[in-house]
């Protein structure tokens, strides 16, 4: 009887651990899809960019955001616009996103390419992402300033906003004029 009670407890503990749910994949946006969404009908050319140590320091200084990689995954459109694919840190996973810039360096659009966090999917809302449209490296691009925080998705909205600000400064420091 006593051993059985112990086993009951273990079964309860294991049952809780065993419940799992199928990972969602419906919000995944491929690179091709991101390109065709942000630059419909345009042909993009990959432009390999490797940031120098000085450029990384400058971007970090200007944006206030740490530069975690020296590689910039960038594509250039025929009229001088840019597509940058990057990621920011989520609570447990990376959040992949694509940023489209006009030839003058203002935001044309933001697309979330993958989101695997438990909460915070509200950042995929087109209305929230539209808040970035038209922003330039001269704008604050900060939560609670010119970008609205999403209650319940604070970590994701802060990190994506920081990521966009960092990439705007990346354009200013390393892509402009290329």
């Amino acid at each position, binding site marked *: 009887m*006593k*051993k059985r*009670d*112990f086993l*009951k*407890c*273990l079964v*309860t*503990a294991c049952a*809780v*651990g065993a*419940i*799992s*749910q199928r*990972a*969602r994949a419906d919000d995944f946006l491929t690179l091709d899809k991101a390109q065709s969404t942000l630059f419909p009908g345009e042909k993009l050319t990959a432009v390999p960019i490797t940031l120098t140590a000085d450029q990384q320091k400058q971007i970090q200084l200007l944006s206030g*955001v*740490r530069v*975690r990689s020296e590689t910039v995954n960038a594509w250039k459109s025929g009229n001088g616009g840019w597509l940058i694919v990057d990621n*920011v*840190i989520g*609570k*447990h*996973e*990376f959040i992949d996103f694509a940023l489209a810039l006009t030839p003058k360096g203002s935001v044309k659009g933001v697309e979330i390419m993958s989101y*695997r*966090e*438990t*909460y*915070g999917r509200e950042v995929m809302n087109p209305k929230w992402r539209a808040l970035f449209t038209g922003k330039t490296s001269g704008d604050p691009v900060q*939560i*609670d300033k010119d970008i609205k*925080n999403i*209650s*319940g*998705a*604070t*970590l994701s909205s*802060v*990190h994506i906003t*920081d990521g966009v600000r960092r990439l705007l400064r990346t354009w200013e420091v390393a892509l402009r004029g290329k």
Partner: protein
Amino acid sequence: MPQGHIDLYQTTSLRSGKDEGSYSAWDFDTEVEYGITDLLQMSIEVKQHYFDIDGSSELNNDNFYSFGGVAMAAKYRFTSVFKDGYGFAFRPEIGYLTHDDVGGLDQHELFIAPGFIYQKNFLDDTLIFAANAAFELAWGKKPAEEYDHELSFEGGFGLSYRFAPNWFGGLETRFRSEYPDFDLGNHEHTVVFVGPALHYGGEKWWATFQYGYQIWGHGVDEGGSQTYAEETRNETRLKLGLNF
């Protein structure tokens, strides 16, 4: 946790090792938490124990199950660690315990425990410092204790680093100090545990494994630099969380 969401936690702990005989106490704590708003969560918890005791001169030498009791808690977040620079939350808890967690003796304990949680993140939220502190007022400690009511302080702090996607590793410490009859001049015991922690988090579930070793303790009528009347040498804990 955002409004309307539910989390389920299962914590399984093994407290083992005393200064005599063989002592193992398993704790099975099952908790359901609900987001009332984005800032306020409520939770209810069921506590169960299983004891395996042999060679003790003061405890019931047997192996047996005992229902521990139930507890309810609220958590209100004043600031967000991601937006405001630091996170700060108030977490009051109330509970009713039908058996004590040292020897499984029958009791009717009622406790209230207001607590606070602080968190500060660094390096893009990959390095996390967290601390918590609470005081607890408990009534109905007899016959497990010689007195009816008790004041205790409990808390801890830890530092963890995200060394790979999904994975955090760190070091945690926990302390607890008890004072019978709500009398700060009447110290019963104080204990400090320190040990590593490993955390994995996925989209729908997470798990945290912790080990704590009693690095220091002092109890009334106990010599040495460790205390075993109510504490153990080792605390090993696995907490599983499911997000809905």
